[in-house]
């Protein structure tokens, strides 16, 4: 599938050629039981079920649960009235009721829930709950939602968030502009389609508290939301959030947890709640559909001039991460390019179309698709090669960030682009567009794209990060963090960073993740930040760790401190191993070292709320083949060059690049969750089609580890950037194959035929 391209350009590493141990959880996962929280099936558990709204928008006039409560085998029926504490939760905007109070705002909005002896009884009880609704006009269009006469989804109106950024002199930029491209782009609602649907177990701990076992990104936040809901002190609630059977952002914000917690609290029993796929589709967040208007220009030499952007995004019924998603879209709209002026505005509308929230690629991928189409079109207008045009318009490494904020100096876009144009996939097709097959059936196109993307949270997001490095009782080296294993291979990142900084053997490391009973508050595992934070934590703690362990060994084994050092197996002296970690742990007993590592948010010193400080970069080339007879599209090959600093785990890096790239490709070529009058049209994987093995292109993945001199940030995240790059790279390849711009995703056969008619007209 992948061809060994040798020799590699200078500064490029190919992760596939680098040895890495299998991920620590591989064997347990391949045997089917690594301990997924939805697999905590125990005798005596009650089963939970949720009653969702059948209407996209309605007032609740009355609710009668008497018959459901009377059904034998039912142990609890809960509605809004059963919430003892804080009924609503949210992030920047606290607007989401755990159970609807007097209004439902999307199809599936939770109205009531039941805990019963069996799922059959629970579902039968749901059927007995009588809710009378007064149906309200459904707001199903973001544009219409923002008109003055629109029905308000929330009391404060439908404009959830907006921002406007202007830099430079638009008039002066306009005056020197020769080539202008103006277009409106539309991107679809994408479903995360994690294979493990939302679910888990809530159970009383027998000591007046509650234990929660649900896949999530931040156990500490889950505990706080549920504690507030139940009016309990947070320390009475415990949350275990790992491992996660896929998330991609879809399990970042709480979903079923408050409802399950309420059922367990009311029934006093352990309650297991695991959504079926259809209800998961209704209930879970999606990628924000966006409409992006872009007007961009360049001068006669092909230097970019003005860039005017207007974004309208549909956030659905509740805010969740919507405001941050829009901020990310705005911040990534200029890309890594040097514009003379930018004028970028965005609006985020509440509607009754489900809920949109966090999704890998996070707000940026939508605008990157649009921007990279604009860049290709401007290059063509200026008569320049796509790569040359980009290269001559890149910001220098020390320039301010996309919205003018101070950022960490970074030349990743330059490095990634310079390497990509040496990739055989790009160099072997000097004609970017060609036609072959009978009657010119197959239309080929080569696409190139370049993106940068932010790492970590924007300024003002209130999350620092605490971890603990400890020698466990059995001699294992534990890095304890509240992060969870989503599949992203955080386990290998922890293992490899420990080996690198602490000089131990891989099997001496035990990552401890995502459990409020034994891990500190690390903030969310999100925004491509965990690997970077683990790297920094261990880098910072290593000297203290070495000193504490060696001092303890010096005392315990009567050696001069200066003769001791850390190594594989334990503490080494001049003659070799002095004490194993196991021996040292036994000797120290309760005095075993625990180092607490606190890391403040890494933010720009600029007074620029919601903007980012650290960026990574990625360039890609894609080969698209369009079948002009069937309208089908195949992406046959993709080359990806990430510039994200040192690669902590070659296997992890490769997996993140390949996996995200296919997700990004699918956003471009196949996935769209249609919502008609507020109802999702594809509620399972037999109608919402995600890629299969047959859809996957051959991918070759490179990494550039070099960073500007003096860089102290180290590795950037790789969790999302492959989504960000693949969508525009595929769109550019398809545009090249069809010799027509792409303005609407996904590009399905109907679009292909529309565009082909234009070509042949």
């Amino acid at each position, binding site marked *: 599938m992948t061809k060994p391209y040798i020799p590699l350009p200078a500064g490029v590493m190919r992760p596939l*050629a680098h040895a890495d141990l299998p991920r620590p959880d*591989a*064997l347990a996962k391949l045997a089917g039981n690594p301990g997924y929280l939805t697999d905590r099936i125990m005798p005596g558990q009650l089963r939970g079920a949720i009653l969702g709204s059948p209407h996209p928008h309605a007032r609740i006039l009355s609710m009668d649960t008497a018959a459901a409560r009377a059904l034998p085998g039912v142990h609890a029926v809960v509605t809004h009235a059963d919430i003892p504490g804080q009924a609503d939760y949210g992030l920047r905007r606290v607007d989401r009721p755990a159970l609807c109070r007097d209004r439902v705002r999307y199809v599936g909005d939770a109205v009531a829930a039941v805990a019963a002896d069996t799922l059959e*009884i629970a579902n039968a009880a749901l059927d007995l709950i009588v809710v009378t609704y007064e149906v309200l006009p459904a707001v199903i269009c973001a544009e219409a939602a923002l008109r003055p006469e629109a029905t308000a989804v929330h009391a404060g109106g439908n404009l959830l968030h907006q921002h406007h950024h202007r830099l430079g002199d638009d008039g002066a930029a306009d005056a020197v502009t020769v080539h202008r491209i103006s277009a409106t782009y539309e991107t679809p609602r994408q479903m995360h389609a994690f*294979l493990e649907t939302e679910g888990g177990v809530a159970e009383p701990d027998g000591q007046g508290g509650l234990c929660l076992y649900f896949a999530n990104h931040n156990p500490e936040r889950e505990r706080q939301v549920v504690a507030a809901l139940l009016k309990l002190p947070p320390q009475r609630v415990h949350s275990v959030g790992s491992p996660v059977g896929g998330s991609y952002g879809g399990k970042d914000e709480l979903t079923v947890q408050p409802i399950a917690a309420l059922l367990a609290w009311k029934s006093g029993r352990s309650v297991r709640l695991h959504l079926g796929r259809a209800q998961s589709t209704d209930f879970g967040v999606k990628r924000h559909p966006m409409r992006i208007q872009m007007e961009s220009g360049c001068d006669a030499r092909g230097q970019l001039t003005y860039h005017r952007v207007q974004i309208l995004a549909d956030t659905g019924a509740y805010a969740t991460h919507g405001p941050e998603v829009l901020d990310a879209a705005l911040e990534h709209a200029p890309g890594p390019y040097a514009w003379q002026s930018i004028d970028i505005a965005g609006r985020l509308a509440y509607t009754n179309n489900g809920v949109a929230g966090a999704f890998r690629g996070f707000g940026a991928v939508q605008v990157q698709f649009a921007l990279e189409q604009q860049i290709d079109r401007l290059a063509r207008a200026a008569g320049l090669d796509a790569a040359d045009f980009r290269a001559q318009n890149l910001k220098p490494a020390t320039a301010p960030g996309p919205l003018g904020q101070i950022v960490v100096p970074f030349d990743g876009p330059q490095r990634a682009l310079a390497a990509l144009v040496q990739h055989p996939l790009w160099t072997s097709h000097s004609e970017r567009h060609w036609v072959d097959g009978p009657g010119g059936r197959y239309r080929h196109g080569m696409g190139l794209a370049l993106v940068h993307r932010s790492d970590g949270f924007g300024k003002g997001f209130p999350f620092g990060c605490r971890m603990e490095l400890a020698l466990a009782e059995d001699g294992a080296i534990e890095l304890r963090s509240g992060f969870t294993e989503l599949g992203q291979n955080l386990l290998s990142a922890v293992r490899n960073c420990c080996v690198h900084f602490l000089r131990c053997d891989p099997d001496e490391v035990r990552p401890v993740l995502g459990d409020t009973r034994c891990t500190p508050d690390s903030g969310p595992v999100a925004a491509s930040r965990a690997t970077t934070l683990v790297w920094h934590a261990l880098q910072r703690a290593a000297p203290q760790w070495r000193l504490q362990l060696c001092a303890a060994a010096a005392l315990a084994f009567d050696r001069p401190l200066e003769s001791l050092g850390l190594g594989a197996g334990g503490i080494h002296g001049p003659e070799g191993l002095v004490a194993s970690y196991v021996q040292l742990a036994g000797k120290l007993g309760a005095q075993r070292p625990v180092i607490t590592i606190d890391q403040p948010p890494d933010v720009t010193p600029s007074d620029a709320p919601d903007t980012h400080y650290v960026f990574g970069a990625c360039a890609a080339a894609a080969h698209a083949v369009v079948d002009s007879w069937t309208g089908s599209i195949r992406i046959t090959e993709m080359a990806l060059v990430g510039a994200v600093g040192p690669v902590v785990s070659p296997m992890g890096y490769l997996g993140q690049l390949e996996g995200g790239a296919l997700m990004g490709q699918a956003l471009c070529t196949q996935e769209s969750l249609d919502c008609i009058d507020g109802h999702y049209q594809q509620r399972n*994987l*037999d109608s919402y089609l995600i890629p299969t093995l047959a859809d996957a292109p051959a991918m070759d993945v490179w990494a550039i580890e070099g960073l500007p001199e003096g860089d102290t940030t180290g590795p950037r995240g790789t969790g999302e950037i492959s989504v960000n790059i693949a969508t525009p790279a595929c769109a550019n390849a398809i545009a090249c194959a069809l010799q027509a711009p792409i303005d609407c995703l996904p590009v399905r056969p109907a679009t292909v035929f529309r565009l082909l008619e234009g070509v042949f007209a």
Partner: protein
Amino acid sequence: MNACIPVPRAESADAALPSCSFTLNGQAVAVQCAPDQRLLTLLREHFMLVGAKPGCEVGRCGACMVWLDGQPANSCLLMAWQLEGRQVTTIEGLARTAHSAPVVDALAQCGGVQCGYCSAGMVMGLTYLHQQPGMDVPTASALMCGHLCRCTGYGGIQRAIDALFSAPQGIQL
């Protein structure tokens, strides 16, 4: 008949429910349940074998794959009445044997596992294919399209297939 196999909790109260006898991972078992009770539910809820996962429950994703009389089958599409007298092998049973070892090694070494929710089903499907004489890379790749993976982009899975079904030079990283 194995005495320690649990009987379904709710259904056991209903004497009218028929009994269904089959062989599960080499052991004779019997359950009383509705004839249309799905095997996936029986495995997870009554036999506490959670290796088969409910990904879609419509036979599309392959995460719940088992073997029925040695042939791959999605357990969400099998009902109790279809199991009478048949042999069911789950990932728990397969993992106890050496048959899946080359497949497990290949997936682990090649980066074919991320979140892992599809992995047990993949092992069931790939091990079956690995036991078929004359199986080649294109055929195996096409047949594995019944297994959805949302994490890997199939890179690691394709590398595992290449390693398992191409010339005997072993895994090439």
